[in-house]
């Protein structure tokens, strides 16, 4: 039951951010799907490993992978699909907790929260990069195969 709720809500959130960022209207649905995939992978990994850094990496990787595939499919820039999906993974809670502890003069706890938030954003960045490199390799391979078959 919680999974169904999470699927529906993450889909709605991704579409809402697509509206705020003014994505093309006919691609709103695709944006929602990308955000939903990213969030499901993220929460699945969080349940399994209990570590939000690894989960953020996996989530961002899936978001970027899905965005790349959709961008090839629809012949649209990849950024349209990736931005609404990435928002779901941003470590807002960690950053907030860090800020709250700074205000309460509890700097040690604040630093641990801030480091975690920093690591999570780094993991998101690495997920994006890994997916991009992987897709480039795959498309280069596919392109070479196509030209090779063309020549033979």
């Amino acid at each position, binding site marked *: 039951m919680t999974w169904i*709720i*999470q699927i529906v*809500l*993450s889909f*709605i*959130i991704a*579409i*809402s*951010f*697509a*509206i*705020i*960022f*003014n*994505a*093309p*209207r006919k*691609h709103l649905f695709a944006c929602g799907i990308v955000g939903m995939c990213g*969030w499901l992978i993220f929460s699945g990994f969080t349940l399994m490993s209990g570590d939000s850094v690894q989960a953020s990496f996996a989530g961002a990787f899936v978001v970027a992978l899905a965005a790349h595939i959709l961008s090839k499919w629809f*012949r*649209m*820039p990849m*950024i*349209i699909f*990736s*931005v*609404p999906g*990435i*928002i*779901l993974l*941003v470590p*807002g*809670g960690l*950053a*907030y*907790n*860090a*800020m*709250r502890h*700074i*205000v*309460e003069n509890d700097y040690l706890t604040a630093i641990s929260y801030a480091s975690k938030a920093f690591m999570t*954003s780094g993991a*998101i*960045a690495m997920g*994006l*990069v890994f997916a*991009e490199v992987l897709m480039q390799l795959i498309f280069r391979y596919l392109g070479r195969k196509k030209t090779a078959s063309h020549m033979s």
Partner: protein
Amino acid sequence: MLNAKNDLAIDCCLLAGRLMIESGAETYRVEDTMTRMAISQGLKGTQSFVMPTGVMFSLGKDGSTRLMAIRERITDLEKIALVNQVSRKLTTAEMTIEEAYEELQRIASANLMFPFLWQFIAAAVASGCFLILFEGTWWDVPSAIVAGGCGFLVVTLIHELTRVKFFAEFIAAAIVGVVAFLTVTFNFGEDLNIIIISGVMPLVPGLLITNAVRDLMAGHFISGVSKGAEALLTAFAIGAGVALVLSF
């Protein structure tokens, strides 16, 4: 005659570059698009240099070089897609350079944003949904919706009035904090922390974070670092706004 044609091509490339940067495209994609458009017009060896604050485009050794400054950047994914379509049509020769220039000018003056009411509702709904994803209780959802909606309304209004982005985000985050605090005080909400986190989510600079990383990886260090700094400042403005409320 040749010069007039080159002039039009360079204008066309610059306009496309400006539109893409203003709508928040990645730097390497802007350079790629401009070079492709130039090649489709038979211009070889063109050079482009793109930053978040300006676009430079040169025809190489014999041609002219032009510069276009960029004053303001927003997030408008639809404009990026439209410019991309124009460049695709130009490279596949479905469109002449004159038609492309007219089309780009039409895109530049058009307002393609969703109506503000839609964006407002989207921000409010997103805040409400985030509350549940962050393991809040259903009882807190209305407070998060009100807080997120107020935050988005305030950030848009103050940005219209003052044109200072960081100030607008600071005030909006503070308003989210105040609304959340009021709802908890009057027993409409239970958990202050989760309501504030959900409320500030529509203000998060998602596009900047994504683009900063991609630009850095593509070797565009100036754009990457400046976009990263913008994202960091925005995050700091939001944090300071929330902290201001929490410290009372």
